[in-house]
């Protein structure tokens, strides 16, 4: 077989190499294209408002998706991310309104986010269910929880008299700081620690993981704690942004996060080619795309169609599993 591979590559262009490069370059090419479209949309004169809004919008998504990359690298996903953030926001605001202060609010957000991740992963280990199935159930539970917390009201807001300290948090530099610090931590965790390495093994083949002494349950729990902490930090930034929670706060963010990770070049199956940068790159792309579509005046409905078509196109190109298909057939001889 290896002999044949060599023969093939001698004959001309090795398509697999080309496709592999394409797949790796695609997220960046996509981002570059979106930047060009964005500049066209702003007549090549993006204002400071453009930049600030971009940072504001990208920060929560980038943090959440960077955390979620860990889940994706296991070949799984978490559909409850958005509503998890909403519950964190809600409890964070409640704590703040009760006098916990900004730091208290941050800790509540963080702990709630991590607790949700913990419950997700522990229950999936206890019931021996795929964790994404658990997150589907968790989404319903969290939605109901949030509704009970809202107590029949349409929203919960930071008490008017206590708004000022929160308004002070609504600052692009602070957001940028959170993103950078969180990303760097994740970068190290993902690429340079045992934890990150084990994630890739587990994502590549759970059987191999078990037979190399990696505890699936422990690893899954750690993964969901990391992504839960991201949800918590994102929740904190959401409070800083809008100081309110409604019945479905963050739900579209949660969906965008999943799309963003794929836009960022994350293989859907997880494993070795998982990239921690996928969250950030993808979030940049998603936010730009969304802003471009609005600036271009795409009517309601069509913008979702554009996003969906692009998403499918990206998945299609990214699934250039040319070599895998070929080899699974070739294994016959």
């Amino acid at each position: 077989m290896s002999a044949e591979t060599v023969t093939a590559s001698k004959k001309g262009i090795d398509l697999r190499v080309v496709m592999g490069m394409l797949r790796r370059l695609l997220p960046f090419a996509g981002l570059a294209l979106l930047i060009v479209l964005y500049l066209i949309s702003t007549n090549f004169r993006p204002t400071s408002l453009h930049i600030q809004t971009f940072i504001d919008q990208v920060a929560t998504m980038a943090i959440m998706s960077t955390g979620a990359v860990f889940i994706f690298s296991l070949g799984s996903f978490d559909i409850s991310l958005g509503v998890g953030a909403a519950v964190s926001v809600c409890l964070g605001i409640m704590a703040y309104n009760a006098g916990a202060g900004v730091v208290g609010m941050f800790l509540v957000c963080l702990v709630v986010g991590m607790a949700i991740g913990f419950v997700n992963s522990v229950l999936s280990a206890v019931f021996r269910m795929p964790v994404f199935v658990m997150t589907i159930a968790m989404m319903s539970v969290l939605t109901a929880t949030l509704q009970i917390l809202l107590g029949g009201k349409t929203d919960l807001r930071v008490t008017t008299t206590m708004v000022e300290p929160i308004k002070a948090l609504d600052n692009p530099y602070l957001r940028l700081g959170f993103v950078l610090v969180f990303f760097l931590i994740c970068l190290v965790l993902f690429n340079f620690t045992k934890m990150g390495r084990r994630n890739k093994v587990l994502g590549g083949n759970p059987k191999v993981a078990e037979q190399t002494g990696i505890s699936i349950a422990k690893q899954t729990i750690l993964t969901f704690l990391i992504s839960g902490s991201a949800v918590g930090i994102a929740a904190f930034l959401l409070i800083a942004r809008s100081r309110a929670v409604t019945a479905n706060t963050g739900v579209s963010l949660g969906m965008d996060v999943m799309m963003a990770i794929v836009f960022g070049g994350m293989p859907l199956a997880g494993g070795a080619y998982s990239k921690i940068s996928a969250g950030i790159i993808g979030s940049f792309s998603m936010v730009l795309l969304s802003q471009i579509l609005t600036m271009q005046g795409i009517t309601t409905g069509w913008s979702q169609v554009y996003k969906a078509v692009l998403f499918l196109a990206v998945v299609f190109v990214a699934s250039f599993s040319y070599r895998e298909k070929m080899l699974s057939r070739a294994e016959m001889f």
Partner: protein
Amino acid sequence: MFTKLSIRRALALPLALMTCLPLFAACSDDTDTPSGGDTTAPKYVIGVIPFSDTAAEQIEWNNYLNDYVAAALNVEFKFVPAPGTDSDAAVRGVEELKLAGCQGILGVVDTVAAIEKANELGMWYVRGGGLSTQENYDAVKDLPYYLGTMGPSLEDEYAAGYSAAQYFVANGSKDILVYGALLGLSIPSDMHVQRFYGIRDALIEAGAVYTEPTSGSVVLGPGIGEFATGTSGLNISTIYGLAGYEAIDPTFNERFTAAVSGKSFDTILMSAEGSQDVNTLLSGVGITGARMNEVGAFTPTAQASFEAGILQYLVGKYPSSMGPSVVALINAIDGHADVVKAADGTGSRLQGPFWNAGSLEEFNERMALDAVANPAFNKEIMENYIVRLHPDVTRETFAEFAALDYDALAKLHK
């Protein structure tokens, strides 16, 4: 060497890029002036935050704005996806509309966080197509850029339910199912509650006895209780929930089947739209021929329902009912927010009444007044209330304009 497969795959990237091409195309369209527009008038850019991406009512509004108002009043409309009850999505929408150059927002949602963000970014905000809850209104009414709400009042909502119930009882209904929509669900809505109260009170006046729900049966928000026949001679059952919205109310169909099986109904009193969905559900359990009302909108969907004999009484908004909201924004952008806002400078609560139809003929008559090419709120009527063109417009005349009902509009068209 290159198999069909590899060629197909190699084509995928260019294809993906091509999906972006319409964006470029949209770009070049940007600078075009809407044909037939008032080219001397300033160009307005107004953002729209819809309440739904798919509801017929919203689509009719969008069509009115894009296909008529845009050219008539020289407005460019920008849309964001419907945020639903996702405050973060609403805030993001407002930010995007700002970047898109919008000067004001016509929001068919009343998320406080979004209105605060619009105010922060210096964009005028009108809550169109309905009212805000008192609490939400109080939270934003003092914001300088908040113009107020425009649409049917809570009294209108109450009257919509009341008049429908009265209409059917007077027309011989005996076995009635009262459909309470969002009552009892976790996303209560004042308008549904008021419509139900209207239905409830009309039935009580007919002699029925109403018992409020016991607290144990209601988890959140106002619930729906039970009716006893009393002196009315009516057999009344109740059901709450959202037909046809599995995502929001996944168990509705089961609840519905449980509530109606073994019974027969000649009338369904609805405090929302969706007569066709409910009719389909009823057919599923063998109940046919029941008469229904809707509190909804004058849309092709409602028309089909009328034509199918399902819908008999409609109270609803209509495509051009968004007209006054646009005029309010234009006035504010021109620097005349004072004619829109209340006298004390807070956001106003302007009424925009429903239209009613008790038959297909009435329905068609009203739709004819609101034709796409010449809608009820047309260019001429609206321009009369733009201060830039008519400096004599006052707060009072503007309120009258917003409150024009069907009869008044019909008279103006003549």
